[in-house]
């Protein structure tokens, strides 16, 4: 690799840093508000069209949600100014570790390995209230 390549690479790296700083200064990310029950349902319907949501838990900080749909747990998590969604077996969600108010869900996916949801308690009471 030539010296001119390294000069060009270094200059490009500086330009990247400047552009990222500009983007941070501009504060033009998509507006994010804590999830409400209704908004979480809308997003879950977009991600899993046609799936019936039997019960839904919205994170206490509004940064995610979890729903039971048949034998599956539908998981929604905030990432930056967007969301990432996955489904895992319900039994696995119930058995997931819950410590200090945070439920840690293993999503078994290289693209999104782990979801964290702040909840009041977990696992849920076996007697589901009407959803």
């Amino acid at each position, binding site marked *: *690799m030539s010296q001119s*390549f390294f000069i*060009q*690479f270094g200059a*490009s*790296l500086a*330009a*990247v840093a400047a*552009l*990222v700083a*500009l*983007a*941070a200064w*501009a*504060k*033009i*990310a*998509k507006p994010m508000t804590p999830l409400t029950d209704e908004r979480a349902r809308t997003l879950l319907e*977009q991600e899993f*069209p*046609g799936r019936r949501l039997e019960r839904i838990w919205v994170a206490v900080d509004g940064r995610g949600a979890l729903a039971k749909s048949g034998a599956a747990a539908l998981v929604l*998590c905030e*990432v*930056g*100014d*967007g*969301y*990432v*969604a*996955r489904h895992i077996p319900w039994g696995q969600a119930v058995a997931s570790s819950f410590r200090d108010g945070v439920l840690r869900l293993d*999503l078994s*996916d*290289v*693209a*999104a*390995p*782990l*979801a964290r949801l702040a909840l009041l308690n977990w696992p849920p009471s076996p007697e589901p209230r009407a959803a």
Partner: protein
Amino acid sequence: MKLDPVTLATPFFILAIVLEIVLARLGRARAAYEPRDTAASLLMGLGSTAAGLVTGGLAAAAALYAYQHRLFDIPMTALWAWVVIFLLEDLTYYWFHRLSHERRIWWAAHVNHHSSQHYNLSTALRQTWTGGVAGTWALWLPLAFLGFPPAMIAIQKGISLVYQFWIHTEAIGRTPRWFEAVFNTPSHHRVHHARNPRYLDRNYAGILIVWDKLFGTFQPELDEEPCRYGIVKNLGDFNLLRVAFHEWAGMARDVAAHPRHALGYIFGRPGWSHDGSRDTSRSLRADWAARALSAEESPPP
């Protein structure tokens, strides 16, 4: 290297991004930037130029070899030759791009361009690190074998890449109808980056949208269905290694877990699984179409 259109255009890329951000900040243009997403996209672009150096030599040598065994002598100075290579390179790009979406091994190299949930000028620079390894450059070898000088092919490829920069924006709504009819535009390419089921795997065009119309993959952007950007299964963070390699890792994992179905997991459609437990673009589109149809058929309440 002085003729490389991408290098020549880089200052323009930077200025255009600055302009898009500033106009959005002033409320004069539609654009959203999330700094970590912007950093990931721009660093993917920078990394791809470095990755290109590693595998670029092999691709260039192959092109030179094909050219040495060429069928015709095509002069780089003739206008007709530029018209022909413009069309043939763009056609090659269409099939390269379609293959990159329809077969997992090539999707693994291309997915990073789609994994941003944003659609702005920085997304255009979110380029692959593994395209050289995936070997899709071989699709351009027939042009050299036909007799187009490798330098001419490289310049036309660069022109196409530079053209595709400006269409990665929400700041431009629709261009004049005649232009939308012939060329790839921000509107057409927004559809290509959308994860709405009805928009999946549509509008593969480089410069001319006519190829999609010809081969049945065209989908206009619809006002009633705003684009939601990203991939079917979005990424869990902005980690650059995840952006660059997650699909390769996922593919390796699947092959290791189901070696008897290795070919399907490598050359099948993205989302293919041996037990049919996962979704492909086709199944998602079919589900969507079935739901749309039943919604149409059911009487209004």
